[in-house]
């Protein structure tokens, strides 16, 4: 009795530890919460599209983008200087460490043009079919939320991906 108790307790403890480790490993794999946590950024840069995760572009790309908001992908997205400065600080502080300059050396402005994005979203990978980004349901690779249902919350976890049927109406 006396000898068995600690053995059992030890076994239980080992089980708890093992389960915990497995859960942590799974969470690492399956939860892909990206930081967009800044109220001004979310409201100002999340009105025409979802607020993109700062980590997906390098600091130079963000600086270049913030310097040209009056001509932002064919739209006028201009901001007063004070608000722009606050947002630039947040973007640069949370930018990806990898440089996102294009082959010509100028900073890339589209997340969807970066080599990382193209690789992660290549045809045939995890249900991505040819032409899906141009389909009626998705329209543009920048429409992250068409597939990442909780992209508006910065959540890119695999379990929250639903790829719309090609050509389906949204």
């Amino acid at each position, binding site marked *: 009795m006396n000898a068995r108790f600690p053995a059992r307790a030890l076994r239980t403890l080992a089980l708890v530890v093992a389960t915990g480790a497995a859960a942590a490993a799974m969470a690492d794999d399956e939860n892909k919460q990206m930081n967009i946590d800044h109220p001004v950024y979310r409201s100002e840069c999340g009105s025409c599209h979802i607020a993109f995760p700062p980590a997906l572009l390098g600091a130079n790309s963000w600086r270049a983008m913030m310097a040209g908001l009056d001509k932002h992908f064919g739209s006028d997205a201009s901001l007063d200087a004070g608000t722009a400065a*606050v947002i630039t600080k947040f973007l640069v*502080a949370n930018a990806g460490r990898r440089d996102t300059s294009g082959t010509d050396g100028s900073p890339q402005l589209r997340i969807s043009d970066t080599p990382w994005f193209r690789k992660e979203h290549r045809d045939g990978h995890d249900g991505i079919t040819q032409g899906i980004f141009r389909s009626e349901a998705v329209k543009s690779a920048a429409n992250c939320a068409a597939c990442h249902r909780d992209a508006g919350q910065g959540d890119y976890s695999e379990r929250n991906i639903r790829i719309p049927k090609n050509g389906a109406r949204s």
Partner: protein
Amino acid sequence: MRSHSLQTLLAAVALIASGFASAEAPADFLARYEAEARQSTPGFSASAERGEKFFTSTHGGEWSCSTCHTKNPAARGKHANTGKAIEPMAPGANPERLASTRSVEKWFGRNCKDVLGRACTPGEKADVVAWLMTSPR
């Protein structure tokens, strides 16, 4: 680092506070834009009918205001490029509309440039506000 994020936080708080401080009513915008319009056009009076026509027509470009906001101010719209949903424009359907100078001036500024290639005149803004205020009827 600490003072840096503190600064950012303070700036953010100040921004949000300024947004609240300038909370206004739709009628305030109508009165203000009418008054501005009268400086160049004495006797100007806003017209919801003109506002509707302005809002739903193109002005030389590809887009009208309705391209993103639909022809019904009480309905949800959809951004022409990104597909993102846009909450209704009419204050009667969405109490957050026509409630803050900062937001209203910012969006008139941007959207008029995109649709007309120039700023909207005070008269055009007064007409649009008058129309948005009549909806939903």
